[in-house]
């Protein structure tokens, strides 16, 4: 029976996770306390159900956007279709700032900047998953990179005229009108969201080969220029 299995599993999980978690630098007990920031929307553990957000049991074992009966945002569904799966790195990046991975996610969480907090929270989530993928068992060598876009990068003011020229590379696929069939809209995004998303592709945190390739050779100034252009695209004279 589902409930029993979960309960039993959660117990076993807890004991092992406490051990492993200590090694890995993540403390699930502390994580449980931190989970209060999530529990307004998410449930986890025995009998967990979908609420504002999907239930989080077995999150380590699945592709993104895969909880039955939960209606995901288009952004999250799209990220899932091109291969977003939950593992240590992606959860770490998502919890640090959800918009790094999914720009128009409905998850309105400002993010958890502290690496130790995220490790602890992820260690707690892991307790409720069967076969956690790629958790660094021997920290700190396997510690994830810092995904947050540095404040000085976010502060770069882009030149919209240069952005307009560069946007020619975007409009071979993305439509300025904001049409979003098959290819998402990038029109009128907040500049900050644009910058965060492009750096996530550039760093390879977001999975999409075309976007990783395109973002891969854009400099910080070029990304800022594009962001400035697309933010105000329809106010252009």
């Amino acid at each position: 029976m589902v409930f029993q299995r979960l309960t039993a599993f959660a117990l076993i999980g807890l004991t092992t996770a406490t051990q492993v978690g200590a090694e890995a630098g993540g403390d699930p007990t502390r994580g449980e306390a931190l989970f209060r920031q999530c529990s307004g929307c998410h449930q986890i553990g025995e009998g967990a159900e979908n609420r504002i957000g999907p239930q989080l049991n077995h999150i380590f074992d699945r592709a993104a956007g895969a909880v039955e009966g939960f209606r995901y945002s288009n952004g999250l569904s799209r990220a899932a279709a091109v291969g977003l799966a939950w593992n240590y790195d992606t959860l770490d990046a998502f919890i640090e700032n959800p918009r790094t991975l999914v720009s128009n996610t409905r998850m309105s969480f400002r993010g958890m900047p502290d690496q130790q907090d995220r490790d602890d929270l992820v260690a707690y989530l892991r307790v409720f998953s069967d076969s956690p993928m790629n958790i660094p068992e021997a920290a700190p060598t396997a510690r994830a990179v810092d995904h947050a876009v540095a404040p000085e990068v976010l502060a770069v003011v882009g030149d919209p005229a240069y952005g307009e020229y560069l946007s020619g590379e975007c409009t071979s696929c993305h439509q300025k009108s904001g049409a979003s069939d098959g290819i998402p809209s990038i029109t009128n995004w907040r500049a900050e969201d644009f910058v965060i998303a492009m750096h996530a592709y550039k760093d390879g945190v977001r999975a999409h080969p075309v976007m990783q390739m395109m973002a891969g050779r854009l400099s910080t100034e070029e990304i800022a220029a594009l962001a400035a252009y697309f933010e105000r695209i329809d106010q252009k004279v």
Partner: protein
Amino acid sequence: MPLNRRTFIGAVVATSGVISTPMLRAQGRPRVVVIGGGAGGATAARYIAKDSDGAIDVTLVEPSRAYYTCFFSNLYIGGFREMNSLGHSYGTLAAEYGINVVHDWAVAVDRDAKTVTLASGGVLPYDRLIVSPGIDFVDGAVKGWDVSAQNVMPHAYKAGSQTELLKAQILAMPEGGTFAMVAPPNPYRCPPGPYERVSMVAHLLKQVNPTAKIIVADPKANFSKQGLFEEGWAANYAGMIERVGPEFGGGNVEVDPVAMTISIDGDVNRIDVCNVIPAMKAGRIAQIAGITEGNWAPVNAHDMSSKMDSNIHVLGDAAAQGDMPKSGYAANSQAKVCANAVRGALTGSTVFPARFANTCWSLIDTDNGVKVGATYEATPEKIATVNGFISEIGESAELRAATYRESIGWYEGITVDIFG
């Protein structure tokens, strides 16, 4: 008209002398003539007209009133698209961007007088000429075939009636009949194109004529996305497709459009449909203009200008530019670099560094899309590859379906970018 930001920047740059003196004509606006309203030419015309806000007089010369894209024409054969969904008119370019669209053939270019002569006899003067005429076929490339045979053995490598003819022939094949393709040697328009076509023909035959066979005579040892196509053919069209490569004489081909036979390395086969895709060269007008070397028109990578004439730019399939494949995406990408450079030369607007990209999607079967792409930069010698990617063998069905949906979005996006 408001003095917008762009004009302002242009003026500052011009007076500060960073860019050579703009060629502003006292008696009128500078004139750009574009030959060919396809992926390269229409994009260039639109970007120059749009970004110069009327400061440049743009004329687009194109014989057809509707352009049917070669891209996705294989999907029409496979039954995934209607032909009319591939047609695009020049109405928006004329009405919204103020481009003079002239439906005629360019028949001559006088490079000294800087004029283009039209079939109707009209003469168009230019300050800059952009040539994007696509491809023509090399005479005598396939023994037994010339363009007069194209209504019996279609190439379907310029889209529209040729594509419709090929599909009608496939649908009329006798049960268990044979479809033959003569694949072209490198370089040619759309490297994965013949193999996407084989996939789509197989998809169609599997439904209407499942015992039919496909034979491909290929002069190339390897082809684009080969591993992905072969994986897809084995999984979806097992036993249907035979490809004869050069090691078995796939390059030694002769066809007979009267007897409807194909001889591959001396072995004569009766066939029911024969899709001949001959070796290609730049559209004839490039040769007439005297800007070709061999079959193609060499260009400088940073602005797509002809190596023979700095007042002429060549785009798309006709250009010999280096590493980019001959694709609609590539032609569109080159056109934007060219438009920026031409505008800068004629009005003094800022010229940004050249950057190019390409991605080619192909459909193998229902919801089974794959893609390959790369970015490029201008070097003194050529357009050179920077980085790239390709779909992987064994990808999930969901990812392949997402890739196909993405290709549909790409088609909508790029056709808006080309035709407005």
